């Protein structure tokens, strides 16, 4: 059970870790100071949650593991984040649409994780749910602004949506080990809120005058450790210090 639980914690935390890393790239380069600060703040919340998850995973694993061995010392295929969060910051519209597609999932996930029979996970969720509610409000507001703003912002937001929508389905993939944790009352049954998720994002896209792509095929792989070509570069940068100077205290 413990091994499965650690695996599950990684699938949950890695989404935050990699999305936070993407947001970290933008710090100091935002379209104005207010959005710069807001996106950094979202990144900070995500990393804060990552620390709690990995501290718990390290405790379960024991030995020499720590939050940092989980964050920095795994191989690419051991990271289990969905493909959506590793997509690049092509422009502000991609950043916002990516954030929105994740946030609407994330808030529902956290609301449900609060009810987990695992007390630590429930506590992490109870603390994080307020943060994530803010993220969802921020990104939804910006989807509306971009979609229903100028011709250019509409075009860019539509492009981002067209390109990123294909990654949404993977958010709801659950493997057998995860399903056994669902049955044990520990993991969140994401299938429960899948239709609500799509209803909500479609409603916001409608308000934003954006057209939901007619998508028949969805991309997947990250949750199984099969990532996009972006991932290697993300990790090269993120792991640089730990790989170059192994076994040191910072």
């Amino acid at each position, binding site marked *: 059970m413990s091994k499965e639980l650690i695996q599950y914690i990684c699938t949950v935390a890695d989404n935050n870790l990699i999305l936070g890393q993407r947001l*970290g790239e933008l710090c100091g380069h935002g379209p104005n100071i207010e959005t710069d600060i807001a996106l950094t703040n979202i990144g900070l919340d995500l990393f804060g949650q990552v620390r709690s998850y990995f501290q718990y995973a390290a405790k379960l694993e024991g030995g020499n593991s720590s939050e*940092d061995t989980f964050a920095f010392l795994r191989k690419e295929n051991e990271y289990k984040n969905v493909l959506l969060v590793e997509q690049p910051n092509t422009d502000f519209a991609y950043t916002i649409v990516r954030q929105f597609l994740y946030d609407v999932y994330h808030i529902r996930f956290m609301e449900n994780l609060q009810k987990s029979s695992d007390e630590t996970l429930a506590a992490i969720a109870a603390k994080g749910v307020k943060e994530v509610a803010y993220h969802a409000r921020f990104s939804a507001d910006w989807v509306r602004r971009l979609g229903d703003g100028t011709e250019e912002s509409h075009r860019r937001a539509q492009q981002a949506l067209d390109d990123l929508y294909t990654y949404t389905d993977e958010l709801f993939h659950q493997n057998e080990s995860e399903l056994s944790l669902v049955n044990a009352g520990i993991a969140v049954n994401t299938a429960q809120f899948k239709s609500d998720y799509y209803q909500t994002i479609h409603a916001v896209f409608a308000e934003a005058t954006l057209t939901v792509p007619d998508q028949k095929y969805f991309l997947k792989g990250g949750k199984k450790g099969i990532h996009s070509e972006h991932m290697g570069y993300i990790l090269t940068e993120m792991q640089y210090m730990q790989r170059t100077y192994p076994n040191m205290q910072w």
Partner: protein
Amino acid sequence: MSEMEIKSLEERFNQRIANDEKIEAKDWMPEKYRKTHIRQISQHAHSEIVGMLPEGNWITRCPTLRRKVALLAKVQDEGGHGLYLYSAAETLGISREELIDQLLSGEAKYSSIFNYPALTWADMGAIGWLVDGAAIMNQVALINTSYGPYSRAMIRICKEESFHQRQGYEIMMALMNGTQEQRDMAQDALNRWWWPSLMMFGPRDAESPNTEQSMRWKLKRKTNDELRQAFVDQTVPQAELIGLRIPDDKLKWNEERKHYDFGDIDWEEFWQVVNGHGPCNKQRLEARRKAHEDGAWVRDAAMAYAEKHANKTYRQAV
């Protein structure tokens, strides 16, 4: 307004400053006071915003999660400082757009220190410890400055800056408690950041033409050389405590003066960087220009949306 009236306003204004009263945005003030304050406050704001870049460069590469969270928070604080300093400058009748245009055109200056590159993780320690340390020296003096909005911004900024300085010193301390490789990294960072940090206090008093007027307006409460000396006196024992060597052969405690004597600053390098030819001047301004230009359509969208929806109420679906 007659010359007599202006003169009497000016006398009253000077009296208020002499009495340590705060000048507020709507109070009468001499034009030169307004302009000098716009220049200094905006220069300070620009420094915060450009200052996000060298440290921002390391956010994606922090060695641990704890360090990553702390660095992100620090750089975010700097953005916040920039924001309220721009707001303080706006109370003097200039818009943020104008101020940013001045930065991007090269007309306005920002602190030269940010034109040096952040090359290793230890630079995150050295910047926090030395650069924020030097900034605090300047800024604590400004808490009592005569212009109310600036003074109040300074109170908050100083609290955060002193936290940043401790954070930077703690990074250095961890490195000095680490392996030889880590100690070398820390010493190398100090070697590169020490002299530029001393330069942060500006030219020698004898060559600082604005000092006298600024002292009278309490926009400056101590001279450049006084602040530089205070910084050296404060920092040398901190370096010694953790086993770092200040890269200055002439550095020596002077028992008579009760201060450290220290070597000569390379003023040629100082003027080179101030005048735009430092190692990263070009990159820093380009990064700011790119962020501003790439963000134009986003700001336009927000304006257009706000106008369209000014009279509409809308339901939030999330």
